[in-house]
């Protein structure tokens, strides 16, 4: 009887463990493939060791993709953080307007990113899109939104911002609502101004919540795929070819499987490193916030 008791927790996780292994297997297979020159035109591949990775790192195309990916991720995460926290602060005032609007805050977040990109693609169409139609009175009716390199990148970041700002906002709002009241009462008694209270009390205590949102957003936008695929397909030229799009083109369109997977493995390593740094930072911030409280 005793050994059965000791085994029980293991028995409970066995199904999940098996399923996890079923997902880890293709991942391991992918790693293995990167050591070969496996493609549709070469179904009997040869071992090439780390040649795929060497090719990746010496390619102009890779560095371009890496740069575009970082620009996208930093841009999207930064704008979403500032905008999301601002929206949360405004909603936290809990006026009648705010209470009504809060109920519909999450709508864009629940729309599939690819559908969001389709919606914006229709709206940003230069000649017949509604955005240029609305800008025409201001003399800005001819903006080529997704047809210039800078415009395409900014447009795709805008779609990301449209979808994900509510994500930051609801986490920040949850944070604001959990703050203790006594430090704020004390500050009010001392006659502290709004800015001082915000800088010295609200922000330090709110940071842990915001940082969780930032970690999620930054790591997700490093591996963006849907939005770019539907909005620009990486164009014009290769101005919005982020790493996952590049991997897709290599592996699925040109059927160079090994080479495409090598791209994703490099991206996976970058995401993993970013996560380590950010989570370490999160621990520090949480301890700081606890001191303020």
């Amino acid at each position: 009887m005793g050994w059965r008791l000791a085994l029980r927790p293991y028995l409970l996780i066995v199904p999940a463990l098996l399923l996890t292994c079923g997902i880890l297997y293709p991942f391991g297979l992918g790693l293995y493939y990167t050591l070969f020159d496996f493609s549709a035109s070469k179904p009997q591949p040869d071992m090439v060791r780390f040649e795929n990775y060497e090719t990746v790192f010496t390619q102009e195309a890779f560095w371009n993709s890496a740069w575009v990916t970082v620009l996208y991720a930093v841009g999207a995460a930064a704008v979403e953080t500032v905008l999301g926290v601002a929206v949360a602060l405004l909603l936290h005032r809990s006026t009648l307007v705010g209470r009504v609007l809060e109920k519909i805050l999450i709508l864009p977040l629940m729309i599939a990113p690819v559908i969001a990109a389709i919606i914006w693609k229709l709206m940003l169409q230069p000649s017949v899109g509604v955005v240029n139609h609305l800008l025409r009175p201001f003399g800005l009716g001819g903006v080529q939104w997704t047809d210039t390199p800078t415009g395409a990148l900014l447009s795709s970041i805008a779609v990301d911002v449209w979808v994900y700002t509510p994500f930051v906002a609801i986490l920040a709002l949850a944070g604001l609502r959990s703050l203790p009241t006594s430090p704020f009462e004390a500050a009010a008694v001392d006659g502290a101004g709004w800015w001082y209270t915000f800088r010295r009390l609200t922000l330090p205590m709110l940071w842990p919540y915001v940082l969780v949102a930032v970690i999620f957003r930054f790591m997700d936008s490093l591996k963006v795929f849907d939005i770019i695929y539907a909005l620009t397909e990486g164009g014009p030229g290769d101005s919005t070819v982020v790493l996952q799009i590049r991997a897709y083109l290599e592996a699925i369109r040109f059927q160079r499987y090994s080479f495409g997977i090598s791209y994703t493995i490099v991206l996976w390593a970058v995401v993993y490193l970013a996560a380590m740094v950010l989570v370490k930072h999160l621990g520090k911030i949480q301890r700081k916030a606890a001191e303020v409280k």
Partner: protein
Amino acid sequence: MTVRKRLLGWLADAALILYFVFALFPIAWMVILSLKPTNELFSTYFSFSPTLDGYRTVLGDSEGIPFVRFFVNSLVVSLGAVALSLVVGLPAAYASARWRFKGSENLMFTLLSFRFAPELTVIIPLFVLYQKLGLFDTYVGMVWVLQLVTLPLIVWIMRSYFADLTPELEQAALLDGYTRKQAFVKVALPLVKPGVAAVSLLAFIFAWNNFVFPLILTSNEAQTVTVGALSFLGGDRPKYNLTAAAALVSVVPPLLLALTIQRYLVRGLSFGAVKS
């Protein structure tokens, strides 16, 4: 002072309304586009004679895009993925919340790493593998790969719900002669029922909204609405009203579900890291 305060209050409300115009206008615009007759698509913007023809075309499969079947496919694979994740995920979540042992922690963190892994790392090998195994473009293949999305979510969030539950109730049940299994099914599970419901719906939404898996691992039989909606943009003259109708039809289920689980979203979206 009071005048200044009131002015600032108005300004804040105005700023809020401005953000919500940005957030909601695209959805409203899709409704307008989807109701436009084809001949008025580009001649007018806000004045038109509404028609349901766009929806009839999309739901009548008359463009050669079997959209209704894609919709059913989305339903089947999302439900299948959530069901499988619940069956294997709930016991694992319970075990890792109640007993601390090495294997469970490793499993939990492996699952969490799935949440942040670039999807293509797994999909490209699967693309090759599925063709060999005959799983390409099948429900089974889709349900399997969607575990990457649904399983980490369900296990992590349910673990945080079980951990919040005081173990004393289950211990009392055990003293009353319940078996451990009965204590779990009859005591612990009913107490976290709202959590299970909310996390299932959230997992369903994410499975439904997924695009990259069906894009690469299906071609026709098991294709879903997210890929289907994109096909309306093809051709040299994209049919705006049909694209808008298809987009709207495909966002209805997630939007309706999302509004019912508002209270649980903070914990759900942050994987239990933030509790409201």
